[in-house]
């Protein structure tokens, strides 16, 4: 029975991927990709990765889908022109052969994997009680492989700087994206008033539950960022100016506190990012609490994109 379910999921996944890649229309391709992301979350459930499934559904399907859908809308006019540049039949045949060869080599590697499979689980389980958290994924993310998580937070901040730096000079410091307006009595504005309180509770629950159950700051931050985007898209609030001091402080506060707590590990536990045993849980919690607002801000602002309007500069150039 479970094999049948897996086979159906695999068949759907491959069909959707193929359809997304060959679809004529970019909008259809992106819509297919969103469904693909949700289907991928099912794959993670079958592969016993509930935490990964939550992240995939929230970020892989949700945020990436929203980002690509927004881009499709603004790229509409350029699609027909590039279609003329599509590869000829010879190139397509070559690409198909190359892709088949890559897949075949990978599949061969999969079939020749060593038995028994190498695993770090026997090292994680006996050491997990020392961290004070019961969810092994959270333990790995914030204790055993904390350096990865720190670098990831820094990568996110660098990505945001990269997106911002693509703004035209005249808009630097302004607000990103278009100013959304929606019917104040419409369904979108209604949902943007009703959903955020629930979304915030669910987000904070996922964050808190992440210590002992599937969940954690990434999944939680995505839901909170989505709620913020919903309020923006309904026209109830505007995106922040990127030269807003508090926005910038919020963005760097998480990684800086992470580094500070990591440095605290040098004298107390003898290693960068080490935790003295009796302080492990409070220190992990402090890092999580500090990272959450940073992640919410960075994820939402990455979705907002580069600054594209500057009310203050417009007011300066037209004083009357």
């Amino acid at each position, binding site marked *: 029975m*479970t094999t049948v379910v897996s086979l159906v999921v695999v068949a759907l996944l491959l069909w959707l*991927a193929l359809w997304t*890649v060959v679809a004529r229309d970019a909008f259809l391709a992106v819509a297919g990709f969103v469904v693909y992301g949700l289907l991928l979350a099912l794959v993670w459930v079958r592969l016993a990765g509930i935490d990964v499934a939550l992240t995939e559904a929230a970020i892989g399907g949700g945020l990436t889908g929203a980002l690509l859908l927004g881009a499709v809308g603004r790229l509409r006019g350029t699609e027909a022109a590039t279609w003329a540049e599509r590869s000829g039949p010879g190139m397509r045949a070559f690409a198909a052969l190359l892709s088949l060869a*890559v897949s075949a080599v990978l599949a061969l590697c999969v079939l020749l994997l060593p038995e028994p*499979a190498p695993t770090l*689980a026997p090292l994680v389980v006996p050491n997990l009680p020392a961290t004070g958290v019961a969810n092994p994924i959270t333990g790995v993310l914030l204790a055993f492989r904390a350096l990865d998580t720190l670098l990831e937070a820094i990568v996110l901040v660098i*990505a945001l700087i990269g997106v911002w730096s*693509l703004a035209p000079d005249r808009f630097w410091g302004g607000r990103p994206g278009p100013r959304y307006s929606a019917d104040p009595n419409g369904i979108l504005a209604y949902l943007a008033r009703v959903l955020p309180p629930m979304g915030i509770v669910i987000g904070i629950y996922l964050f808190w539950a992440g210590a002992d159950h599937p969940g954690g700051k990434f999944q939680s931050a995505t839901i909170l960022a989505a709620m913020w985007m919903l309020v923006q898209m309904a026209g109830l609030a505007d995106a922040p100016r990127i030269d807003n001091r508090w926005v910038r402080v919020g963005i760097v506060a998480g990684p800086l506190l992470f580094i500070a707590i990591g440095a605290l590990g040098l004298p107390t536990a003898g290693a960068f990012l080490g935790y003295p045993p009796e302080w492990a849980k409070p220190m992990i919690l402090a890092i999580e609490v500090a990272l959450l607002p940073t992640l919410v801000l960075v994820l939402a602002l990455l979705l907002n994109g580069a600054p594209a309007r500057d009310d203050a500069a417009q007011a300066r150039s037209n004083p009357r």
Partner: protein
Amino acid sequence: MSVETLFALAACALVGIGLYGLIVQPHPLRKLVAFNIMGSGVFVLFGALAKRGAAAGLAADPVPQALLITAIVVAFAATAVTVALLLRLIEVADSASLAEEPPARERT
């Protein structure tokens, strides 16, 4: 065939499908979607390896799974930077063409 082998083989196919789209599709946004499919194939392969590592009472090896969460978030950040680059390209060049000689067009 076990679940993890089935999904690992599907992941190999996903990498191939994504690579094909990356080469064949002319529009940069379509290349980006194809690249994301290729990346997800790598993630699923890694996840299947994590499932193979089930031991010590855990259903899967938590270390690769934690790295996967990191990978998904970083992939989103990279996609966001690419989309911003793409929108800027169109603003500046008025075309999404990646050809070496962009189509002749009157610049104002």
